[in-house]
């Protein structure tokens, strides 16, 4: 039975973590002096980043390519009502209102590490539900091997989609066993508040052991398909971004190392920590990839 390794109990009171930040900062300064890198394990007692950090430092190219663009440019997007198309190899295809699609699936909190392919990271307290619950509801048919997702394209409110930076709409996909894994969630909230537009309102995918670009935002389409779909970044540069995109410190991006990462908000000193295999979720997900060459299937 799956048990999330982080719960509300792991959230440290603000006064304590502010204090710990200073210790971490001091450790960071010490590590400069001693040349000792600060391992991610040293931060095992994870603390979520602040609301401000999570909601003002985003990659959401539909709203612009700079990290501050999504927060600034996404506020005109209306996400209620919202329709999600469910199609492909499902028992109950159709155009669902978001409320109907989610129905009575309860939301819960999941505090996950979030590791961007650009080698920065945060810890985010999501509210959401396991994707498998949604998939079971729409009924996955035999022959479906993958789930494909699409982000909305709303040229009226998305400045970015007017430029061919990427092949719009943004697309992502998961192998069915990845999609059904209990760690994989659909998030509709952060810090018990509705998820802000810049973070992928009204509903986004969160796959904590994969690079952030897999966790597709602002979903309008979910398709059950037989063949492995091509995701947007893979389409953009297949030599740099793969389909699996599992966080892996041993497999570098062609242009930068993935062995370590900068923790957002850790300041000028001591912000770099070692990256963990499968972003620290190896115990839960490594078995999904047994026998696979992760260098080839990056």
């Amino acid at each position, binding site marked *: 039975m799956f048990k999330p390794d982080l719960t509300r109990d792991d959230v440290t009171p603000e006064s304590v973590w502010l204090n710990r930040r200073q210790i971490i900062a001091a450790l*960071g300064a010490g*590590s*400069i002096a001693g*040349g000792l*890198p600060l391992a991610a394990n040293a931060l095992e007692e994870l603390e979520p980043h602040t609301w401000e*950090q999570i909601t*003002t*430092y985003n990659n959401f*190219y539909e709203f612009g*390519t700079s*990290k*501050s663009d999504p927060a600034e440019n996404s506020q005109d997007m209306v996400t209620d009502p919202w329709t999600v198309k469910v199609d492909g190899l499902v028992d109950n295809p159709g155009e669902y209102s978001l409320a109907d699609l989610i129905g009575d699936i309860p939301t819960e909190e999941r505090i996950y590490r979030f590791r961007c392919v*650009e080698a*920065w990271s945060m810890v985010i307290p999501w509210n959401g539900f396991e994707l498998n619950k949604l998939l079971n509801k729409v009924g996955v048919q035999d022959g479906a091997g993958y789930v494909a997702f699409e982000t909305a394209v709303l040229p009226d409110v998305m400045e970015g989609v007017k430029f061919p*930076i*990427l092949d719009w709409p943004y697309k992502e996909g998961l192998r069915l066993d990845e999609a059904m894994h209990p760690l994989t969630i659909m998030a509709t909230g952060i810090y018990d508040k509705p998820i802000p537009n810049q973070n992928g309102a009204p509903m986004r995918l969160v796959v904590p052991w994969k690079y952030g670009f897999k966790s597709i935002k602002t979903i309008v389409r979910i398709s059950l398909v037989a063949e492995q779909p091509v995701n947007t970044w893979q389409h*953009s540069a297949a030599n740099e971004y793969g389909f699996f995109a599992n966080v892996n410190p041993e497999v*570098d991006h*062609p*242009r*930068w*190392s993935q*062995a*370590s990462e*900068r923790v*957002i*908000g850790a*300041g*000028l*000193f*001591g*912000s*770099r920590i070692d990256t963990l295999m499968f972003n620290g979720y190896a115990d839960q997900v490594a078995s999904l990839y047994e026998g696979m060459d992760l260098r080839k299937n990056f």
Partner: protein
Amino acid sequence: MGAAATFGPRISGVVRKLPTWPVYLAGMVPGGWLIWRALTNQLGMDPVKTLEHELGLLSLQFLLASLCVTPLLRFARINLLKFRKALGLLAFGYLVLHFLVWLFLDLQMRWSTIGAEIVKRPYLTIGFAAFVLLLPVAATSWQGAVKSMGALAWQRLHRLVYVAVLLGAVHFVMQEKVWSLESLLYLAAATLLVGMRFLWVRSW
């Protein structure tokens, strides 16, 4: 014709009377402002990256500015030659800071990673090569160097700037996740400024 013909020389006349130290001082303002914001936590969520990128950009901007001096003299007859050294040294200073931020704040002295990165990542190899090429240029930027080396040798050595600015711009373009107009414009400017030198002097 008349206005254009006298405008350049008139500016040059004013420039001749100015000392060079205000250029150094003014050139340090953007860097000082940047470092101040870094130290007071005003560089946003990822201050190391911002500081690193902005310093690199400043270096490229000053390098490009230094390469505008000769074309300005040639085409507009504006003589800013006395400021060229200041622009070049400011560019080099920002490049050193850019490199130091990468070493100490970004990669935080993970020396094995640093070495591997410079060798393995083409954009870093290219950026590092630009830095190395500028070392002898900066080291011979003092007045006496021209005399001791001889003007011709000195001039030849300083043509390394042309290679370095192109490498710097390519380094900028390559580190972007998607093609960015901004970095491509810098590369275009560098290509233009270096390209016109090739047209002027066909045989080196």
